[in-house]
């Protein structure tokens, strides 16, 4: 049990009404079973109805809440790291006649707006990871839809490479959100129909407004599924298809025969004041300034890349779900540049299963950072190591400050960054002026959701500056050089540094958090659209808007009334 159950009757769940633990070991899973047989892994969903995080929201018919999603993400990650032999993952159901009914509506209705938004985002990240794993790790996903598959259930199937549907003249795939719930299929459903599966938009319109969905031949003809099999031949069809997909995976030249990578326990536990200390990443809340200081400590330890990525990833999730009021994240780093760049080769040109998966995890973690709805401020100070993969952290920030020169005087006790550094104990004294050093990693190994590098996104449209900045790869840039290259927002000297940072953070805390979230998301993802940017920028934004509209969550809204037997009453005004 890694989640604290809260009562759905609780009137004020607050942002953190339910605490989710992203640091502990989730095994044994309660909702999933994994069976690996050679190159084929079968991941079966069998949601325990009483295993959800909200009391009173029974997880019937393989419907999910975060308790199910956390385990799913854990399972996918473990398959990637611990099972290099796996070329195909069959996603199936442990229940007869039902594949997955999607997000549990009572749980959704009971959750705060923030929880809803974060659930959708986390779920979307995991769905996108299936596609990313297929693309980059060569793991093919097969959705074995042997029973009812609706809403988020079909969206889960949509994220797979291949959808096999049982044809028994009864089982259907459906997206009933619009007609039944007054919300969107917000886990990529609408986007993948048109952009991935190229379902005609008029048919997508029909399908997404037809609560009962489509079955058999028609689902196949419309491109909603890839294959049909009768009931008695279903298991065989799954086996045959999985074997073929696994074969395809081998053809793509994954690091076959690589050694499994064990995911050691993180062993991090938040203290009562909210500090979290990992081996390489630490977090200290500064509640007066509504900010979280996150310090990444570099190390030449070969365990660093994997461990640091996992810790950072877990901390980001923890901040999203459990610390909704820490609106700004100050990103700090400590160590020598060499301690980070020593890992460059492995992250840039992975030569083993372990290196590849670690590099991909960094890529996803940085992407998670891009998608975190907090103001990101990177502070490049003496003794920091924003180099190599950590240069990407600095480039991910909404604002990047670099100290011009060194600190001459003692800094005030409440200076930005002091709290989290205190968690780490005393540091090496000599440091010299800080520098920022991009390496080859920043040239495309860690693309953002928009398909661009963080450098390109930062300097979008200014090709000369991008070319010039790219020319600095491999060099450490001091404040002046970094400013000239367009990599930093400001370069205060030691006289202004603490005040400038403090003012920037305090100013941020005074703005509307909603406006900031929206503004930052707009600025971060410039340039071309991808399926991911459409999902996070368009689908999610509309969904999140719908979530706060009375038609969905007002007293007579569809989500509020779902399951009560009373019908929603909509305001007819089109907005």
């Amino acid at each position: 049990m890694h989640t604290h159950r809260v009562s759905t009757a609780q009137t004020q769940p607050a942002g953190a009404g339910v605490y989710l633990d992203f640091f502990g070991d989730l095994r044994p899973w309660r909702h999933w079973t994994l069976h690996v047989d050679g190159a084929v892994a079968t991941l079966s969903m069998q949601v325990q109805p009483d295993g959800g995080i909200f009391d009173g929201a029974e997880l019937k018919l393989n419907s999910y809440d975060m308790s199910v999603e956390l385990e799913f993400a854990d399972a996918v990650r473990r398959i990637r790291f611990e099972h290099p032999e796996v070329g195909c993952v069959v996603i199936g159901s442990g229940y007869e006649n039902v594949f997955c009914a999607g997000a549990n509506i009572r749980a959704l209705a009971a959750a705060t707006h923030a929880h809803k938004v974060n659930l959708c985002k986390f779920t979307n990240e995991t769905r996108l990871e299936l596609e990313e794993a297929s693309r980059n790790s060569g793991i093919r996903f097969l959705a074995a839809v042997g029973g009812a598959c609706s809403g988020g259930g079909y969206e889960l199937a949509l994220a797979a490479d291949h959808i096999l549907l049982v044809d028994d003249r009864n089982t259907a795939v459906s997206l009933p959100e619009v007609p039944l719930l007054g919300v969107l299929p917000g886990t990529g459903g609408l986007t993948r129909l048109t952009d991935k599966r190229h379902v005609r938009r008029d048919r997508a319109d029909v399908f997404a407004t037809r609560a009962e969905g489509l079955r058999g031949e028609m689902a196949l003809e419309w491109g909603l599924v890839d294959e049909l099999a009768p009931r008695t031949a279903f298991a065989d069809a799954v086996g045959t298809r999985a074997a073929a997909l696994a074969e395809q995976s081998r053809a793509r030249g994954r690091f076959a025969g690589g050694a499994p990578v064990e995911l050691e326990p993180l062993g991090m536990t938040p203290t009562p004041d909210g500090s979290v200390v990992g081996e390489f990443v630490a977090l200290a809340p500064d509640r007066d300034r509504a900010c979280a200081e996150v310090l990444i400590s570099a190390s030449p330890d070969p365990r660093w890349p994997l461990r640091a990525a996992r810790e950072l990833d877990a901390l980001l999730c923890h901040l999203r779900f459990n610390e909704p009021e820490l609106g700004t994240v100050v990103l700090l780093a400590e160590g020598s540049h060499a301690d980070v760049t020593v890992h460059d080769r492995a992250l840039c040109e992975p030569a083993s299963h372990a290196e590849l998966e670690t590099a991909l995890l960094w890529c996803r973690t940085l992407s998670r950072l891009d998608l975190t709805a907090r103001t990101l401020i990177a502070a490049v100070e003496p003794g920091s190591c924003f180099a190599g993969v950590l240069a990407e952290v600095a480039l991910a920030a909404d604002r990047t400050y670099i100290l011009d020169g060194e600190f001459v005087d003692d800094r005030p006790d409440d200076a930005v960054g002091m709290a989290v550094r205190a968690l780490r104990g005393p540091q090496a004294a000599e440091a010299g002026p800080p520098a920022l050093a991009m390496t080859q990693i920043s040239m495309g190994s860690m693309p953002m959701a928009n398909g661009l590098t963080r450098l390109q996104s930062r300097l979008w449209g200014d090709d000369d500056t991008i070319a010039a900045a790219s020319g600095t790869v491999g060099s450490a840039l001091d404040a002046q050089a970094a400013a000239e290259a367009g990599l930093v927002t400001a370069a205060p000297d030691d006289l202004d540094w603490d005040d400038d940072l403090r003012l920037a953070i305090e100013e941020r805390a005074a703005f509307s958090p909603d406006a900031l979230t929206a503004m930052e998301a707009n600025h971060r993802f410039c340039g071309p659209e991808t399926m991911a940017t459409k999902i996070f920028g368009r689908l999610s934004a509309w969904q999140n808007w719908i979530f706060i509209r009375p038609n969905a969550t007002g007293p007579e809204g569809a989500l509020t009334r779902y399951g009560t037997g009373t019908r929603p009453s909509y305001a007819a005004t089109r907005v």
Partner: protein
Amino acid sequence: MSKIDYSERIPNNVGLSEDRRLQRALEGWQPKFARWWDELGPAGFSGNDVYLRTATDTSAEGWAHFDYVKMPDYRWGIFLSAPKPDRRIGFGESAGEPVWQEVPGEFRSDLRRLIVVQGDTEPASVEQQRHLGHTAPSLYDLRNLFQINVEEGRHLWAMVYLLHAHFGRDGREEAEALLERHSGDPDNPRILNAFNEKTSDWLSFLAFTYFTDRDGKYQLGALAESAFDPLSRTCEFMLREEAHHMFVGATGMGRVAQRTCEVMVEHDTDDVRPFGVVDLPTLQKYINFHYAVSLDLFGAEASTNGANFYTAGLKGRFDETGYDDDHVLTSTTFACTEVVDGALATVERPSLQVVNLQLRDSYSDDCEKGLRRWNRLIAEAGIDFELTLPHPGFNRAVGVFAPHDITPDGRVVSRAEWEASCGDWLPTDDDRDYVNSLMSPVYEPGRMAGWIAPPARGINTRPVEYDYVRL
């Protein structure tokens, strides 16, 4: 409009000849139905004259006509009860408004699903009972089986008519699918699991007609309350035919008990199997089994769909006007029996969410009536034995009791305890083998198989000895 026009290719009282499009659609479906009947309807007997009832009018008096007919020539048709002038919606948020003659767009898929699920059960039972003709205990019973079969076929027609008339292309596809799913077919099973079980012996058949057809009565009754008037009128008339099916079950089970009692008295023993009748404990086991399976057909006690259907006016409760409440159910609670901390307890739930349970409770009350009659027969024979309905939590696969092991007398027990005793509560393989061993056909007019007493009277004032099926 209550008179049925038999001059048409498809007998009807809905003015089919005035709707060319619909007529064409149904005439397209007709040969498929005939093929289905031929392939999956009663095995054998298609060339025999059967003394069958055919509806001629949907008004209460003189509504049926009895005559010999070969089953494939039976005039399946479309019969709706006469419209009630100014009928109003009786429940839900639109209570008091005029009923609908057309499907409102917003309820199109819910209504279609309700009709498809109901429609799916009608041909399913015909398929389940396909081979029973070969082991009928009498010509009287054989005729009753066939009467039920043809009428279930007609009930399929009734649902198909609604699908064709009101649901466009989707409806036509669903109508086809009703003939493509088959009871027990592993690839294309019937929608509700109870209709994929085999009905392999006549005791099961009689229990099925008593318990499972009675579920049909309650479902049809709830649909007869519908705001969608064509559905209401269709179900209204189906209910009249359905009454005969339950009569077959009620009297049939009674005749089995009666025959057993006669043998018990005659030989002064409880050990009646050597005399070729069904011992009362086995009869009780069949009751237990069929009652539990039939309760599952009511769905989960607390049901979002049930509540939505009620609020929308699509499906009410049985005899909705008989309920002394506001027929909106948004402000009252209903006492539900559930398992709380390992013991049965009463939990108050919003009435609207447990419409299914209310329907099921009225069904259970109705089931009790038959048992009282059978127990009277047993008592009159001077035998100290009482047939009972098991606790509603017994042997359930659907709803709140499904995860628990509950005895027929309503104790929550461990899985091990349940398994150790379930042979005392449900028919064992031995019991079924024994019952099957009794199943030899008796085709001589007036004679009965040894395990069942003759009926009190024949059909349509004919004597019991009447040649109900000409072999």
